[in-house]
C-alpha cells in the first residue's frame, strides 16, 4: 500500500510537472495553427530536396506578408502565410514550383469560432463526466449515512477532475515545449486523453465502491485509507496491462504511421502515461486526502 502511504510524494511529483508545464505554456506560448487563427497553409513536394533558402528567396519576391517554412517528410515543405485569395494561392504555387500536396485556407472568423468550439467541447465533456461519476457512485453517498467510512460521491467526481486537469496540462506543456503547433488534431488528442483517463480512473473507483459494499455487508469497520489502498493494489496489474496494450498500438502508429498521425500518436502516448499515472497515483490517493480533511473538520 505504498501508493497511498507515500501519496504526498506522488502529489509533489505531479505538482512539479504541472508547474513546469504551466511555465512552459506561458514562456513559449501556444503556437496556434491556421485552424484557429486563420491563414493559408501550402504543402509542396519537390523532385529533389530543395534548400530552404531557395524557397525563401522565391517567396520574398511575392507580396504575401510574413510567412514561415518548415520541411516535412523527405522532399516536402510546408509554407504558412496569411489568408490568401485564389489568385495569390496560384501565384504562390506557380512561383515556388513543385507539386501541391495540400493547400488549406481558413478565414479568421472560422478560426476564432473553432477555437471557442474546441474549448466548449472540452468544458462540456469534463462537466458531463463529473455528473456521470456523481450519478454512478451515488450509492457510496447513501452508505455514508449508515456509518461506513468514506467520502460522498461528488468528491469522486472532484478527484477525477483534478486528475483530468493533470492529464491535459502536462501533455499540453510538453507539446508547447517541443514547439508543436496547436491544431484541431491536437484538441482531438486531448479529448481522447480525457476519455481514456476517466475510463482508467473509473475502474479503480469501481473497486473502491465494491470493497466499501463488501465491508458494509460483512459489517467490517475498515479505515478508508486501507480500503482505497487495497482497491489500488487489486487493480494495479490491470491498469498497467491495459496501458501497455494501448501503448503498443500507439507506438506502432508512431513508428510506422504517416507523418500526419505521428504527432498525434506522440500526444496520445504522453497522455496515456500521464493518464495511467494520475488514476493510480493522483485520483485514488486524493480520495484519502479528502477523507482526512473531512474528518479534521468534523473534529474541530
Amino acid at each position, binding site marked *: 500500500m505504498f501508493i497511498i502511504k507515500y501519496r504526498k510524494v506522488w502529489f509533489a511529483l505531479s505538482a512539479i510537472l504541472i508547474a513546469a508545464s504551466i511555465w512552459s505554456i506561458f514562456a513559449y506560448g501556444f503556437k496556434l495553427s491556421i485552424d484557429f487563427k486563420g491563414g493559408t497553409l501550402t504543402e509542396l*513536394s519537390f523532385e529533389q530536396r530543395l534548400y530552404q533558402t531557395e524557397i525563401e528567396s522565391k517567396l520574398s519576391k511575392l507580396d504575401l506578408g510574413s510567412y514561415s517554412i518548415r520541411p516535412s517528410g523527405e522532399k516536402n515543405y510546408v509554407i504558412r502565410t496569411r489568408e490568401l485569395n485564389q489568385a495569390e494561392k496560384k501565384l504562390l504555387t506557380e512561383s515556388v514550383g513543385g507539386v501541391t500536396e495540400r493547400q488549406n485556407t481558413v478565414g479568421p472568423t472560422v478560426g476564432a469560432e473553432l477555437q471557442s468550439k474546441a474549448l466548449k467541447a472540452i468544458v462540456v465533456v469534463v462537466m458531463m463526466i463529473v455528473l456521470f461519476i456523481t450519478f454512478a457512485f451515488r450509492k457510496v453517498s447513501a452508505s455514508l449515512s449508515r456509518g461506513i467510512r468514506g467520502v460522498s460521491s461528488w468528491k469522486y467526481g472532484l478527484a477525477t477532475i483534478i486528475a483530468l486537469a493533470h492529464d491535459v496540462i502536462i501533455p499540453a506543456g510538453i507539446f508547447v515545449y517541443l514547439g508543436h503547433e496547436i491544431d*484541431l488534431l491536437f484538441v*482531438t488528442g486531448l479529448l481522447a486523453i480525457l476519455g*481514456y483517463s476517466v475510463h482508467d480512473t473509473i475502474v479503480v473507483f469501481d473497486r473502491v465502491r465494491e470493497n466499501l459494499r463488501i465491508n458494509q455487508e460483512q459489517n467490517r469497520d475498515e479505515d478508508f485509507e486501507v480500503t482505497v489502498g487495497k482497491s489500488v493494489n487489486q487493480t494495479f496489474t490491470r491498469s498497467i496491462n491495459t496501458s501497455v496494450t*494501448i501503448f503498443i*498500438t500507439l507506438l506502432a502508429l508512431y513508428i*510506422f*504511421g504517416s507523418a500526419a*498521425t505521428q504527432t498525434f500518436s506522440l500526444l496520445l502516448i504522453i497522455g496515456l502515461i500521464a493518464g495511467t499515472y494520475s488514476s493510480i497515483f493522483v485520483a485514488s490517493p486524493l480520495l484519502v486526502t479528502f477523507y482526512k480533511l473531512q474528518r479534521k473538520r468534523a473534529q474541530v
Partner: protein
Amino acid sequence: MRKESWISIILLIIFSFLGWYFLLKNKVPFHFGLDLVGGTELIYRADTSAVEDVGGAMESLKEVIEKRVNIFGVSEPIIQTESAGIISGNKEERLIVELPGVTDIDRAIALIGKTPTLEFHLINGENLLSTGLTGRYLKQARVEFNSTTRAPVISLEFNKEGGELFAQITRDHQGEILAILLDGEPLSAPVIQEEIRDGKAQITGDFTSDEAKDLVRNLNYGALPVPIELVSSQTIGATLGESALNAGMRAGIIGLTILSLFLILWYRLPGLVAVVALICYIILSLVIFKLVPVTLTAAGIAGFILSIGMAVDANVLIFERAKEELKKDKSIHDSLHEGFSRAWYSIRDSNISSIITAIILFWLGTSAVKGFALTLGVGVLISMFTAISVSRTFLFAIASPRESKLMRFLFSNGLHK
C-alpha cells in the same frame, strides 16, 4: 458437446464469413475522408440576412449546389449545411462541400459559386435596351450540334410566361438585333427574322463544346437562393492521402501482431481467446464502417485504434478478476463466472463515460473531430458486445469441467504458476 461449444462454432463461422465476404473479397468499399484519398473541401458562408425562412433557403441552396456538383461528375460528393446557433457554435449559416478526388480548386470554386445571369437586350444603335426577358423565364437549356458545321449551339426553351414575352419581342422588333448577354457580356447578337411563337431560341457563338455544357448547366440550375462566400478551403493531393492510408494500415497490422503476442504470453489460453475476440471485434467494426458507411479520416483511424485498446481492456479486467478467484482455489468455471460478473460494473461505467465523450465530441466537433468521435463511439459499443459475449462464449466453451494442473496453468496469467 455443450451449448457454448456450438455457439462458438457458429460465431466463428459467421465472423469468418463476414471477414471473407466484406474484407477479403472487398464487396463494399470503405468511405475514406478527404485527408486520406485527396480532394477538396470548401466551406461557404451563406448570407441569409435577406430571407425569412432560413431553413428553407438553406435546403434549396443545398439542392442547387448538389445538382451543380453532380453534373461535375464527382463520385460521392458530400454537401452539408450547418446552421447558426448556440448548439453548433456557429455564428452564421454554412454550406460545406466535400469533393473527393477533385484537386483543381479553381474549377471547383467556379463551378459552385458561379451564378450566371442571362439577359436579352435589343440593340438600338449604340444603346442596349433591356427587354425584361431573362434567364428566370427559362424552362430548359440544352447543348445541340449544328448539323453542317458540327459547332455546338445552345437551344433554349422558355416557360409559358417567357414564351409569350419572347413572342411579343420578336413580333414588335422584326429586323432589329436581339443581343444575348451572359453576365453582361454579349454571347451572340442575331437579327430577329420573324415572330417566334413556340418559345424556343438558339444561341450560336464562339464556344467549345465543354464551355457550352458548362453554360447549359449553369443556365438550367439558375441563381442561388442566397448569396454565398467562400470562407475556408482545403485541398489534399492524392499521393499524400494514399501514403497516409498505407502507413496507417501497416501500423495497425504491426501493432495488432505485437499486442496479440503480449496477450497470449501474459494471459495464456484466455489471452488467445482475447486475441480471437479482438479479431472478431475488428472484423465487425470494419464491416459496420463499410455498411453505415462511416467516413474514415486520419483522426477516425486514431479513434478506432483507441477503441481497440478499450476492447482489450474489457478482457484484461475480466481475466484479472478471474485470476483473483482462481487464487482462492475456486474451480475454473466458477472463477470465470465471478470474473465476468464482477468486472461487468467497471466495464459498463468506464465505457459509458467513453460513450458520453464520443457523443459530445460528435455534437460539438468539426468534421475531423466528428470522424474521431464516431469511430470511437461505434467502436466502444461494438467492443462491449464482442468483449463480453464473444469472449465469454469462447472461454466457457474451452473451459473443460475436468480440472487438471495443465488447465489451471493455462487459465492463470502473468508470472504465476
